[in-house]
């Protein structure tokens, strides 16, 4: 190289830029993989929780089944057994479905698609976990009945009064919960509702969503990626 002018270096400058562009893309890919692995890891506690919940559902199912099969002659125990059986089945289905949704997340998909799957998972999880939780306003009554076997077969008047009182208490509890839920729907209380919703979603899902959100921001910063 004997003569080189400044303008001759433009091609070298363009080559350097292209190489750096490739490097930026590689780094982005590495960072993306790292974050996706972290997202997958943060969902693991939720998956374990669902497995535990499915086992709990199975236990309730077995308790309910044994109650209605063994005590068909006692209407209260029979009804309690059926209710517990149904609740156990529904809990197992819900937990299994949540597990399937967690497993079906394709981490090779575009970030926006993963984000949409997490939003859907959260909506589903928060929705049914409300049902699972709220059911206990009344569900503890059949549970106590099923667990108190083989105590007095037909219900005595005092026990019947207890049953009605407990049911009323549960219904009032449910109504109050519903009223609070309605009250929270006011846009003025959106922040409080969001916090409660975050609480219901649990730390695992929130962290996974935060990871994906930061990945999306990173990709945006580097010019988007689909």
């Amino acid at each position, binding site marked *: *190289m*004997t*003569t*080189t*002018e*400044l303008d*001759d*270096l*433009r*091609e*070298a*400058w363009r*080559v*350097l*830029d292209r*190489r*750096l*562009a*490739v*490097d*930026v893309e*590689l*780094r982005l890919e590495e960072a993306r993989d790292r974050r996706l692995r972290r997202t997958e890891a943060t969902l693991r506690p939720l998956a374990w929780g669902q497995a535990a919940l499915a086992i709990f559902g199975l236990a309730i199912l077995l308790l309910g089944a044994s109650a209605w099969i063994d005590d068909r002659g006692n209407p209260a125990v029979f009804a309690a057994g059926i209710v517990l059986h149904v609740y156990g089945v529904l809990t197992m289905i819900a937990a299994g479905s949540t597990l399937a949704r967690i497993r079906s997340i394709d981490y090779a998909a575009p970030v926006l698609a993963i984000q949409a799957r997490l939003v859907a998972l959260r909506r589903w999880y928060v929705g049914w976990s409300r049902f699972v939780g709220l059911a206990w306003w009344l569900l503890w009554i059949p549970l106590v009945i099923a667990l108190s076997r083989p105590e007095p077969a037909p219900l005595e008047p005092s026990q019947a009064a207890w049953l009605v009182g407990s049911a009323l208490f549960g219904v009032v509890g449910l109504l109050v919960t519903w009223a609070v839920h309605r009250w929270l729907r006011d*846009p003025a209380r*959106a*922040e409080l509702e969001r916090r409660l919703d975050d609480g219901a979603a649990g730390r695992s899902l929130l962290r996974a969503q935060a990871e994906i959100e930061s990945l999306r921001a990173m990709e*945006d*910063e*580097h*010019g*988007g990626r689909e």
Partner: protein
Amino acid sequence: MRQKQHTGQAAEQAAFTARLEQALPILRKVAAAYGLTTADRHDLMQEIALQLWKAWPRYDPARAFSTWTYRIALNVGISHLRRSSGARRPAVALGELPDDPVAGTGIDPVLEEQIGLLRRLIDGSNGADRALLVLHLDERSHREIAEVLGMSETNVATRLSRIRQRLRDGLAVHNHDRAAPRTKETTQ
């Protein structure tokens, strides 16, 4: 009210993201000129993006976006270089590290030599001259360079001619050094 604010912020962020995508080549070029190592260049790109976001509310759409971006990016680059020099960080240039993905493949020796020359020229320049080089190599007019750097067009031309002279001098020394061993071999 809060929802409106949130929607406004989201729209603002989307507008910025779209603009930033356009500005990415500028960020890369400035990082290439002022970053010392691969990791350093990436950090610098992040820093520039952050400063652009902070300055975004003050951006006047009537003015050229590239000029605004260059001005901020080069200021960040110059400050970064000053900090790096203060910390006496090793100046590892682009294309010099064997594991540097930006290093050349050596397929075109002339081009690789030019890249080496360019790197030496950049590394031997101070912050302001690097800014001038980046803009000139990016085929910006003297007028545009003057606007970005806040100097007169005459000043731009003078400084560029000094850089050209430095390049010629450097090249002369380089050619002399390369020729010297050959001459020695011939005489022996």
